[in-house]
């Protein structure tokens, strides 16, 4: 919560609270916006259940869907080539 001074009629200054902006969750690999990630402030996210905070998939909320697909495809190919 950002505190800002604002001049108010009656030659007084008043303290105004500004809610902080929520960041956009981006994929760690390709930088694309992540699906399934709610754009809420930390206090609101804390109230959510774990499955509401991010997609229930390995690397969900960290890598986008396509990057996880590529990752596991390469992993399978390298491991068993």
């Amino acid at each position, binding site marked *: 919560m950002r505190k800002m001074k604002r001049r108010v009629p009656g030659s007084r200054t008043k303290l105004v609270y500004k809610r902080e902006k929520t960041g956009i969750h981006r994929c760690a690999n390709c930088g694309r916006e992540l699906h399934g990630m709610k754009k809420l402030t930390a206090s609101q996210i804390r109230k959510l259940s774990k499955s509401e905070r991010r997609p229930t998939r*390995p690397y969900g909320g960290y890598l986008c*869907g396509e990057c*996880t697909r590529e990752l596991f495809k390469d992993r*399978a190919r390298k491991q068993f080539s």
Partner: protein
Amino acid sequence: MASFEIGRVCMKIAGRETGKYCVVLKKVNDAFVEVTGPRMLTGVKRRRANVDHLEPLPFTVEIKEGSQDDEVLQALEKAGLITKFGLKRPSAAQVKTEKAKPPKEAKVEKPKEKKEEKETKDKKAKKK
């Protein structure tokens, strides 16, 4: 690219079960394939999976089309894949309960009235 024939072992690369192994049971059409883990071994349910969400591995297992989970399990055991993948064998009790479970009835086509019910509900909602 290895093809998706019956008994092909694949790894799921999309969805909740990403990174888990499964065996192809039946070819539904050129885009979909029926797959099972089996669930007690790899955690992949017996389900229809899109071919793009599967990565074929260079292993196959001799099973009949649409065979039961315990047959698939024995076939995997015989092919020595359980040790190769380092999977935990399900205990005999699990195998028994899995078998005892009644098979799910096939998806019944939703009867027509479902639509009418929905419309009447919307009308009521509008009236309120």
